[in-house]
């Protein structure tokens, strides 16, 4: 099971929207995930211990440290584009996570 976080500024609005889209794509791929959404601050403290963090492209620089520990950081341009999420999961996530999926 992959641990996934969707993060945004306050952890209220946009992270929840991407969470719904991300869950849908992983379901299509038959990959089991444990998904939460939170603010950037909270996500920062948890990022080292999860497999993937999704956030807006503008915020990826918050996760440099987690990246070193092997967490995959996915920066999204259009948070509402299922197509972009699917493409980035296919290219950057599948087969590259700490926990095998």
């Amino acid at each position, binding site marked *: 099971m992959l641990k996934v976080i969707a993060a945004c500024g306050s952890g209220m609005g946009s992270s929840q929207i991407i969470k719904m889209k991300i869950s849908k794509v992983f379901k299509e791929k038959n990959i089991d995930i444990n998904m939460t959404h939170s603010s950037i601050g909270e996500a920062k403290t948890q990022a080292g211990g999860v497999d993937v963090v999704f956030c807006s492209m503008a915020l990826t620089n918050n996760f440099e440290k987690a990246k070193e520990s092997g967490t995959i950081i996915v920066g999204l*341009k259009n*948070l509402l584009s299922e197509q972009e999420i699917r493409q980035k999961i296919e290219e950057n996530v599948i087969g590259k996570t700490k926990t095998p999926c």
Partner: protein
Amino acid sequence: MEFVISLWAFFQNNILTKPEFFVGFIVLLGYILLKRPFYEAFAGFIKATVGYMILNVAAGGLVGNFRPILAGLKDRFNLTASVIDPYFGQVAAQSAVNSIGRSFSMMMMVLLVAFVFNIVLVLLRKITKVRTVFITGHIMVQQSSTALWMVLFCFPHLQDPSVVVMLGLLLGTYWAVASNLTVEPTQRLTEGGGFAIGHQQMFGIWATEKIAMRMGGKHGKTGKKLEDLRLPGFLSIFNENVVSTSLLMLAFFGTIIGILGKDLMQKIDPGFSSTQNFFFYMMSKSFNFAVFVCILQLGVRMFVNELTESFQGISNRLLPGSVPAVDCASSYGFGSPQAITLGFLFGALGQFLAIIGLMVFKSPVLIITGFVPVFFDNATFAVYANKAGGIKPAIAIPFASGIIQVLGGAFAAWYFQTSQFGGWHGNFDWDTVWPVFGVLMKNFQYVGLGAVLIFLLAIPQIQYFKNKDTYFLIAEDYDAYLEKIAAKQAAS
């Protein structure tokens, strides 16, 4: 008959007038209607109810933390104070509604009526020209709260059912019409991203794009963009909600407590023990605001989760082709990180200047910068302004907006009397268009309400008549829209 009456009384006393259970049962009902398994519906009920109860704890904490400071300001300078922030505003509105003995459960009913009316307006889009459905749950809660207090303030004798219907229609119209205004700016910013903004500064976004285009487009080209600008690295700490809220609160409340002085605070605040150092008292008092805001957000997140998910499901199922109106932060991926930081900085600068101005001119209400409006509104404006007109409007518009937020917020907190409870909603639209709506309703009652509704409903009509051939196309198929515009230009 007696049985029915006592049943109704039971329902009214235990559920209808207790927002936490009312919200819980709404979620339960929603899940049952969506044919989810019973254990999921039950879990949803618990999360929504507990979430609301958490919110209540935070609201009580915020008000309690604020009370000695408000008392000190009153005692020493005969001032009231308001934090301009939607979370403080929501708490102040709730306190105000409870203070006149009305039930805050109406907030939830207003929200549902407004959401349904937004959908009706989109279903009738051939006539109404509305293209967008507002689905940002936590914003809907905040706006329903503030607007509920405004309507009770303007129409104190109106019975509960009439309040719910009337405000539901008004708020639903605002959600539909204002988010519809952001379709064009957002499609241009995101190059066909397929969403609109459903947040707290929608009129502001529309105005920003218009002004930025004029400022940047003098020579037919847009001005210099922000992308190459380098900003110092320490500014990135403001990305974290807790840090920025704590710093802002420390700056403002630290100063206020410092001015009020150790002796007065010790007299007013029983929580200030004689062994505690004044500076550390100041710090713990200020950080406490951040603590309660965090708890409040946790509570809101818990019960809004359930709402947003079902709202999105409903709008997808019922309204194919409509545009979802979502959180303003969704636009940030399309702007440079510099635009976001710069918007926040210049917005803050504008706010601070305006606050000094208020003090110099002896305003009866002291305004305190809250994090949400100064960051989210102004960062959003900077992103749109940078795209439409480059660096100059991306600095000037957030700066001007900061000033407007403080002056409009001060007026609103004073006029609608929420400054007694220490807060006002504070986001751009609630410092500009909504206070005007409120003043119209207070002074002209139903005539004022009618005028507001006509004004709002006329907006999409005007938009449509200006661009009849591309009005729906820009929302549905952006590439086709671009082709059509290019073909039109080639022909002329």
